[in-house]
């Protein structure tokens, strides 16, 4: 638990820099970039983005030549901690869509020198937002059965097909897409991973309305969309290996549990339960059955946090790509979804609100988050797919499902 390397000096250096760089207006957890279009704030956010980018703190572990800060995981964590202590948020991972968390690390893994130089700095500086074109309407969890065609026309790639669940496609500048460059082999062969700009005539996006209301997801249509020849990531036909790595990066970024809602204003779920349900003479939540389930949830949540810490410590700070990603994805999902169900339940009738003044913002938010949260066990490798991975890759049980 103690820091193996002495961080005191570095911590002091970062603290000084944060003090000098973080605009006053952005201090405090409740400042939200997207919900609040106040021009002064917009300007403050951009100033802060530039400060982060100048230090390479948008992607602190990336090499400095690509816009990162060249830090190891332990130093990077200190940067995050010091920004948080000052009440700030490193918002570059948020405004670049899939750029920092998934596309960038995968380009680092597979990209040519030219690709790294071309794409990474724009992500690290927070200027280029990326989306990912992976799922297709008839494929679902079975990513490899994709049909989007990518043809080599000689001087560029020509892309035709449809993607679904492309988060942020309507506001992204670039897209990493899984495409089929060859249909002659098995379904895992002939898949490639191509990078293409979204601002072109051959790309159309259509937002998807979800059961929780509006969503960041889109259907994305490629109709003679093009990509330059140099923008195939890794070799032609090696897309399945690219995507496997990319999904590991995704799982690693999804292992933190707990939705933003309950507790976001410093209120724990047990405090909310006491408010909505009331307490008995001994101060216990006055619904023994609910209270018992709350305890199981709170314990599961605590255990999840301890396991996260433990894995991080065992890996000496490098938690990104480990065999543990599947168990942590599923366990984060359980904790988050259970919390949402319990919050809804403890609110009783007030946990059924959709809109209108009869419900608080928190109540309506709880309902929307609960519904939205049902997706967590579906996307990024469904809970079932993760269990397949655990039993096969970790436990070494024989192949169960993937036949193709």
């Amino acid at each position, binding site marked *: 638990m103690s820091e193996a390397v002495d961080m005191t000096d570095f911590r002091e250096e970062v603290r000084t820099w944060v003090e000098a760089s973080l605009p006053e207006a952005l201090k405090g957890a409740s400042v939200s970039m997207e919900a609040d279009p106040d021009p002064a704030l917009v300007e403050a956010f951009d100033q802060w983005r530039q400060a982060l980018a100048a230090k390479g703190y948008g992607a602190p572990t990336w090499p400095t030549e690509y816009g990162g800060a060249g830090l190891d995981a332990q130093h990077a964590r200190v940067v995050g901690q010091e920004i948080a202590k000052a009440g700030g948020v490193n918002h570059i991972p948020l405004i670049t869509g899939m750029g920092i968390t998934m596309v960038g690390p995968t380009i680092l893994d597979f990209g040519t020198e030219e690709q790294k130089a071309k794409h990474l700095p724009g992500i690290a500086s927070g200027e280029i937002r990326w989306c990912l074109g992976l*799922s297709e309407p*008839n*494929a*679902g*969890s*079975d990513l490899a*059965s994709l049909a989007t065609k990518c043809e080599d026309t000689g001087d560029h790639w020509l892309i035709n097909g449809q993607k*679904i*669940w492309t988060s942020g496609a309507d506001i992204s500048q670039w897209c990493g897409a899984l495409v089929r460059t060859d249909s002659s082999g098995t379904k895992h062969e002939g898949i490639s991973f191509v990078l293409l700009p979204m601002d072109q005539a051959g790309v159309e996006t259509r937002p*998807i*309305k*979800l*059961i929780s*209301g509006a969503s960041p997801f889109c259907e994305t249509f490629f109709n003679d969309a093009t990509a330059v020849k140099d923008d195939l990531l890794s070799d032609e036909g090696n897309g399945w290996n690219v995507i496997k790595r990319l999904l590991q990066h995704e799982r690693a970024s999804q292992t933190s549990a707990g939705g933003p809602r309950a507790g976001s204003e410093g209120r724990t779920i047990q405090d909310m339960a006491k408010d*909505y*349900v009331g307490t008995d003479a001994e101060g216990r939540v006055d*619904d*023994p*059955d*609910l209270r018992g389930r709350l305890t199981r949830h709170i314990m599961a949540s605590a255990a999840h946090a301890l396991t996260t810490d433990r894995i991080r410590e065992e890996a000496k700070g490098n938690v990104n790509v480990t065999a543990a990603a599947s168990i942590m994805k599923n366990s984060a999902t359980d904790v988050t979804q259970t919390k949402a169900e319990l919050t*809804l*339940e403890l*609110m*009783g*009738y*007030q*946990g*059924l*609100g*959709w*809109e*209108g003044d*009869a*419900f608080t913002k928190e109540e309506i938010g709880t*309902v929307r988050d609960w*519904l939205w949260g*049902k*997706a967590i*066990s*579906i*996307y990024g490798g*469904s*809970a*079932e797919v993760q*269990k397949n991975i655990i039993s096969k890759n970790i436990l070494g049980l024989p192949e169960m*499902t*993937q*036949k*193709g």
Partner: protein
Amino acid sequence: MAALTEEQSLIRDQAKSWATSESPLTKFRKMRDERVDNAYWPDAWQSMIDMGWTGILVPEAHGGSDLGYLTFGVILEELGRQLTASPLLASALVGASALRLGGSEGQQAEFLPRIVDGSSVFTLAVDEGPRHDPSKVALKAEKDGNGFKLTGTKGFVLEGAAATDFVVAARTGGSAGEEAGITLFLVPSAAAGITRTALRTADSRGYANVQFDGVSVGGDAVLGTVDDGFGLLDAILDRGRAGFGAEMLGTSGAAFDMTVEYLKTRQQFGRVIGSFQALGHRAAELYTGAEHARSCAEAALQAIDAGAADVPEKVSLAMAMVGDHLHGASRELIQMHGGIGMTDEYDAGFYLKRARALEAIFGNQSFHRERYARLLGY
């Protein structure tokens, strides 16, 4: 399904046929999209009246058919499959039960025929806090000459915006949390001092908050006995709960059927997904749960029809078991559908949202498990 009489079978067939052809889920979607007032279609409601469903619990002397709760449940199950809401449950089941259990001859003669012909829509106004708890009634009814003056707020009143008459649980003595001191009143919704706020809920059903600001009623507005209304209230609630149990059977049944159908048709990894054993086993567990849920829901209705002594136990058993099954079935509905189930365009979300509302109303599973344990004395 319970062994039905010939008459009950006919009514079930009629209800199924009417619901699937005249009130299918597409009508529910349209109602939601168009934000139809009171969250039901007036012509559908009129058809129910025309088919005599509003009279099923009303004695023949007052224009009904007196066919009992199991028969009513058979209809509610079919409506629950299509998520068809209407004042049927609130008025013709809960309202009619209130009048039959607590009403004087005069009250019955005056109101029951109006329930049957639909000219009155009754509903029960009981809860005041976010969670169902009938003993916590606090709305004050103060003696005022020969009558009473009602002050307070009721929340989440079923069909509260459409209702013409409320059965209001009020406190004439004792304090919130005590069973003694509760009195039921019949209060027309048009009475001076009543303000209603229709709610917009996730499940798109007609609930309202109702405020009572010194609403005056006469002494003849009392239903049952002054100060001693808790037992009556609980008996009315049990009938409403049994009705919701039947509706939940339909809702969970449709959700499960939709899931199984998808398992049989959706292809992934080169196979129909229902051939994945892990999914097949979970479906088998749901099916087992569905069978038990049905047994409990029907047993509650039959216990009421038989005038059995253990109606409260049977009802709480049903609400807990059917509620748990519906919870699980609605969760698996989304999970097994994957991404498509998350889209508003698909119907799965409607069942998930309605499920949580049905679980909450008149006591969720926790409420009924606690009640059951207390009834059994441990």
